[in-house]
């Protein structure tokens, strides 16, 4: 294994960089730009049991250091993902895939995972209990420890593959949610989803987003994400996928020092389709500069340094 290699829930990764759900579609369209097998893995577009168009437009707004989105889980539904999208992805991607799953009830999550179980190339389920842009589901499961426990333990019962709980930062105590997920049998934690935000158009005096609010992502959220990864790493024994504003190789290293075993790159893909690849290519040079021989050596090192 190379200097960039890491491991996530027992599955080796050639490098820690994973494009985040919602910023990379189902991957195959990026294969027109570069060989996506260079990536550690990829987390595909949040999939629900039934097809969803999502929210009305405008769904996108800009802000300093980032953006707001209120897409609202647009996806063709689990069956179409399995039968139409994943076959296209598998033609251009041969590594284990991270399947991002969302729902509006516990049984939604369970049924979606059951359908996706037919796809052998899925390596992990990333259970999104943190979407801020839909009502009556998503984030409501990720803001209450007992609801998070219920979703994760139910999904746990229908698959033997690693289950990763994707957490919302829009909570008072991220650690209690992470602990509930670990107790429910999660094999890993990924964080953070977007931070709830809002913009107003000065001319119309109305919200820019048709949904009024949206999720903030981009470099602006990086310190918040880093802090939460650090706190959760101290509190749980399962591995962490760190994300939130990562746009450089330096950000990857910082996130891993805070406790992440792998990282997801989100908004950066939207302003530079080559962002994830560029980060991977930059890593060896940046590791050199900071005297890092192997990335796996630095996971959670900051907490140890403090002691």
């Amino acid at each position: 294994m190379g200097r960039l290699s890491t491991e996530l829930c027992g599955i080796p990764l050639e490098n820690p960089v994973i494009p985040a759900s919602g910023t990379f579609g189902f991957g195959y369209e990026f294969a027109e730009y570069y060989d996506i097998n260079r990536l550690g893995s990829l987390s595909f577009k949040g999939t629900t049991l039934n097809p969803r168009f999502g929210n009305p437009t405008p769904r996108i707004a800009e802000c300093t250091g980032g953006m707001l989105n209120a897409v609202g889980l647009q996806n063709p539904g689990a069956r179409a993902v399995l039968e139409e999208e994943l076959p296209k992805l598998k033609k251009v991607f041969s590594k284990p895939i991270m399947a991002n799953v969302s729902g509006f009830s516990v049984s939604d999550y369970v049924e979606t995972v059951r359908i996706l179980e037919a796809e052998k190339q899925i390596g992990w389920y990333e259970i999104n209990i943190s979407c801020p842009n839909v009502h009556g589901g998503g984030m409501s499961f990720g803001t209450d420890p007992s609801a998070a426990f219920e979703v994760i333990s139910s999904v746990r019962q229908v698959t033997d593959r690693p289950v990763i709980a994707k957490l919302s930062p829009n909570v008072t105590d991220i650690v209690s949610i992470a602990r509930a997920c670990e107790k429910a049998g999660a094999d890993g934690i990924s964080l953070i989803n977007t931070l709830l935000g809002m913009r107003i158009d000065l001319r119309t005096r109305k919200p820019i987003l048709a949904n009024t609010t949206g999720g903030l992502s981009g470099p602006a959220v990086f310190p918040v994400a880093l802090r939460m990864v650090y706190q959760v790493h101290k509190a749980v024994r399962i591995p962490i996928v760190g994300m939130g504003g990562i746009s450089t190789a330096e950000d990857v290293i910082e996130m891993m020092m805070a406790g992440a075993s792998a990282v997801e790159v989100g908004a950066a893909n939207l302003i530079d389709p080559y962002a994830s690849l560029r980060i991977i290519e930059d890593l060896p040079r940046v590791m050199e500069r900071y005297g890092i021989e192997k990335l796996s050596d630095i996971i959670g090192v900051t907490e140890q340094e403090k002691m």
Partner: protein
Amino acid sequence: MKQKTMTVQSVRRLNHTMAEMKLSGLGDAVIHPGTFVNIQIPGYFLRRPISVCAADGDILTLVFRIVGKGTEYLSAMHAGETLDVLTELGNGYDMKKAGDRPLLIGGGAGIPPMYALAERLLKEEKRVTVILGFNGKDEMFYTEEFERLGAKVIVTTVDGSAGIRGFVTDALPSDCTYFYACGPAPMEKALYRLLDIPGEFSLEERMGCGFGACMGCSMETRNGPRRICRDGPVFAKEELLWED
């Protein structure tokens, strides 16, 4: 899609709202009328999608309305400065469908993509009619450029200060084979109701990525959800659900 570092050759104001920018560095990018580019602007997170007005060899011409700080930044740039530009985005117009007498209709900031289209259709020896709609004479631009191409140009102004008083819908000729339209949503929806020839519309939406990854600019169509940036921005009339 191709990522290019392009160099500003010139920037000029066409009137109090519109600016024209010429950039060099197209290289091997193939520019099809109706496609757009997405420009990274220093200090702003999201790129700015701008439709292609003309492409000639290595030179790309953009004509855009100054609507906010991003476009204001572009309009204040100087020759020699560089920009990170994603090119060849979107589907562009279907020129094969034009017939002998295509009708091109542009409203305000929707006029620029009609220029490249008129140029190409005239090269194919089509009889091109262009309707250019403005609010008033002070907002007019590019009318002489269209005339120089050899198109039949009809100007309309809402306040009657030039050309025909009224909207582009008040100047529709009756002998055209196919239409291409780009402009504000009310204009496009009026054309959708009034025109009985086949044609296509270029649409606009706030975009995240501009290349199909984020689902930020989706729209319901007769063929299911479509991304304006990647499946569009040009959609055939019959794909749109604009009945009401």
